[in-house]
């Protein structure tokens, strides 16, 4: 089992290494960063000096190895536009993005769990179909459009909530709903299928025989057990949400990593883009690894593979 885990860790590192190479090459392919850094009147000498300063006059392989070495020491370069360490910039924006993702998860659970439970209990009734429609429509809505429509209804027409920015609790509601809605469908289906399994089980029968009220059976005995599969996927959901937040942050002018990344791409501020891509990839690899480790402990079949 240690060998299995070790292999997975090494694979994770390998993946990140390849991604760092891709990211590095993409940054170089996009044109000379000096064209953006220097003013239009810059002379050839200015270019040469700047190239030397940023190490851009070196061979590509050497540049990549330097980049990699620095990255391993936590130095992902300076933002060309803002002249500050890229990692620091990303770090500053991280809390806003995480808060939004957290709020979105909360929203999706609050909407999805009751619908999932009810459609399992009232299986094949109109209620179940309504749940399915909500799920299907949710998965078909582009989040940017949902965001705009929410702004139109709740900020412009009704004037209940702020349309953009941060600050108060109210600022969270619209972006969290727009971001979390897509997950509602997935979580709802998970809860529904888990509930259907649990509702058939022996201990639920026992609880009924004992005379526990139906409401207690469903919401206490069943839901507690049915909540396990959706909880297992929270890690994945976080990953999906963080990527999705790039769009939602644009719609709601939310000062998180997504907005930073989009600005960085527009200004060709590649150290920042590299940092964000690497960070997201690392997050994905780590989440996958953690889930695999968890599976190893849960499922003996994996443990005893060679």
């Amino acid at each position, binding site marked *: 089992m240690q060998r299995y885990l070790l292999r997975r860790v090494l694979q994770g590192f390998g993946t990140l290494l390849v991604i760092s190479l891709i990211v590095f090459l993409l940054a170089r392919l996009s044109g000379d960063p000096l064209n953006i850094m220097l003013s239009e009147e810059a002379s050839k000498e200015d270019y040469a000096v700047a190239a030397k300063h940023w190490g851009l006059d070196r061979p590509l392989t050497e540049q990549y190895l330097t980049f990699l070495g620095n990255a391993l020491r936590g130095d992902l370069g300076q933002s060309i536009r803002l002249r500050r360490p890229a990692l620091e910039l990303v770090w500053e924006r991280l809390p806003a993005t995480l808060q939004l993702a957290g709020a979105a998860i909360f929203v999706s659970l609050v909407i999805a769990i009751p619908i999932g439970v009810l459609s399992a209990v009232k299986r094949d009734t109109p209620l179940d179909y309504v749940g399915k429609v909500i799920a299907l429509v949710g998965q078909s809505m*582009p989040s940017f459009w949902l965001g705009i429509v929410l702004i139109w209804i709740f900020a412009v027409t009704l004037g209940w909530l702020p349309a953009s920015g941060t600050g108060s609790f109210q600022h969270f509601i619209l972006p969290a709903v727009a971001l979390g809605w897509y997950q509602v469908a997935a979580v709802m289906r998970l809860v529904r299928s888990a509930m259907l399994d649990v509702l058939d089980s022996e201990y639920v029968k026992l609880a009924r025989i004992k005379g526990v009220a139906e409401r207690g059976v469903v919401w206490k005995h069943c839901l507690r057990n049915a909540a396990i599969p959706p909880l297992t996927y929270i890690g994945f959901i976080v990953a999906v949400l963080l990527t999705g937040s790039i769009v939602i942050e644009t719609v709601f002018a939310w000062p998180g990593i997504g907005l930073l990344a989009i600005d960085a791409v527009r200004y060709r501020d590649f150290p920042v883009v590299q940092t964000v891509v690497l960070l997201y990839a690392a997050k994905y690899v780590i989440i996958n690894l953690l889930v695999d480790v968890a599976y190893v402990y849960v499922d003996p079949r994996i443990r005893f593979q060679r």
Partner: protein
Amino acid sequence: MAVAADRVEAQAQAAPGRRAFGQSAPMLVFVALILVLLVVPAIFAPWLAPHDPLEGRLAHKLKPPVWLTGGSWEYVLGTDPLGRDILSRMIYGARVSLSVSLVAIFIGGVVGTVLGLFAGYFGGFTDSLTMRAVDVAFSLPTILLGLVLAVVIGPSFRTVIVIVSFLLWARYARQVRGEVLTVKQRDFVAQARIAGCSHVRIVFGHILPNVTNTLIVLATLQVGYVILLEGTLSFLGVGIPPPTPAWGLMVATGRSLIVSAWWVSFFPGLAIVLTVLVLNLIGDWLRDRLDPKLRQL
């Protein structure tokens, strides 16, 4: 990220007693209706669109839809800030969205399928190499990579196709490879080998036909996803460049006008919702018909 969705779906779809939602009569009528409303205008756009999608008249800018005061039958769904007819642009936009997704899915599908077939059939080094590439493709943040690629190669119709197919191939590769692993154990593969078939012939002639159902279902389910992706890229300004009518781009145009002219954003977005909804319904239905074991897709 896509793995996440897969595993979530796998659980969700494994629901016992799950009845295909698209099979009830009213749903089928709905699906057929939207499909007709989508495909017919996309094909016959030049004859059906009431106005030129690119030419606007500034005198008629930001006209509301017909049922609001100030609206007229000339511009049924209103006009955008350049005085272009929104309905006509939506009709041409259907063309753009559908052609982008079909071409990208075809390219991504072919590349992914071939890689998956070889990885699964030959195993060993080919397999590890392909699967590590799949890992890399899955761990790259989709939208961000699209943004970077669009900046690197410059936004155009071709760029969008390159980006989207690049994001799609890995799913096919993984799915096909998994199926090949089981198919290649079956007797007919060994028999074909004994009969003297070459590896290439076995892969394409004997194994590929056994994974076609999977491919059809996967491709159908992906059309909706790709339309969302294309819409998102266009919305962020790195998809189809203006003035070509693309739904995502139209939503982006109306974003700053949501206070005064909601229809500019609303209708193109609604077109995306209905299209993706119908495609998902068809995908679900096909999955149940062709290949129930694909519930884990």
